[in-house]
C-alpha cells in the first residue's frame, strides 16, 4: 500500500514538472505551492478549484457572446481580460498567453468590423 502511495506521489511530481517544462505553469504557481502549510493545508486545491469555476463561467459567457450574429467584441474582450487576470494570478501561463493572443485578434476584428460597416 505504502509503495503505491509513493508511486502516485512520484507521478504527481513528474506531472507537475512537465507542466512547468511545457509552459503550462510559471513561477507564480510555485508561489502558490509555497503558501500551502499546516494553517492552509488545502490551499492549492482551493485556489485552483476557484479558478476552474471562474474560468468555466467566463468560457460559457465567451461562447455565448461569440455565438451572436453581431459579435460584441467589447464583451468578448472584457471576458478574456478577466481570464487573463485570474490565470496570471495562479500561474497558468499557457492560458494567460492564449488570452493575450486572443485579445489582439479581438482588436483586429474590431477594426475590420468597423471598416466593413
Amino acid at each position, binding site marked *: 500500500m505504502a509503495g503505491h502511495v509513493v508511486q502516485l506521489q512520484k507521478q504527481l511530481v513528474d506531472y507537475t514538472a512537465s507542466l512547468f517544462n511545457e509552459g503550462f505553469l510559471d513561477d507564480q504557481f510555485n508561489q502558490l505551492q509555497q503558501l500551502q502549510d499546516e494553517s492552509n493545508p488545502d490551499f492549492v486545491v482551493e485556489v485552483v478549484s476557484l*479558478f476552474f469555476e471562474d474560468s468555466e463561467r467566463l468560457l460559457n459567457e465567451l461562447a455565448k457572446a461569440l455565438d451572436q450574429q453581431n459579435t460584441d467584441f467589447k464583451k468578448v474582450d472584457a471576458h478574456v481580460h478577466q481570464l487573463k487576470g*485570474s490565470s496570471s494570478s495562479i500561474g497558468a501561463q499557457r492560458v494567460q498567453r492564449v488570452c493575450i493572443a486572443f485579445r489582439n485578434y479581438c482588436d483586429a476584428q474590431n477594426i475590420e468590423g468597423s471598416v466593413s460597416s
Partner: protein
Amino acid sequence: MGKPTIDHGDQKKLSVLIVDDCSSVQVLHRVWALKLGLEVHIAENGKIAVDLHRSGASFDLILMDLAMPIMNGEQATRELRAMGVDAMIVGVTAYDDGPERQAFVGAGLNACYSKPFTEFNLAPLVQVIKEINEKSI
C-alpha cells in the same frame, strides 16, 4: 520616568481592503495579506468598497482591481478620493500600460501594479505604511 509604555509592543494590525470581483484572486491576495499579519476585508466591486467607506469604515491599504462590474476601480478610486479618503490606494490590474491604466492612475492611485500581485509587491507597501504611521505618532 513617566508612564509605562504598554502600547508600543501592542501595535494594532494594519487593515487591507481587497477589491476584486474574481474569487481566485480574492483568495490569493487574502492569503498574502494574512501571511504579512494584516487584517483582511474583501469587496467584490467598486460600489461595495465605496459604500463601506460611506458607512464609516476605513482601511490602511486598499488593493483595487480595475475591471469590475457595477463600479470599476477607476470610478471607485475617484469617488473615494472625492470623499476625502487618503489611505494608500494601490491598483492591481491585468491591463498593461495604456489608456485604461493611465486613467486609472489619474483617478488617484498611489501606485499601480500588474497582475500577478504577490507578497513581494505587498511586503514593501506594508513597510511604507508602517513607517508613515510611526512618523505621525
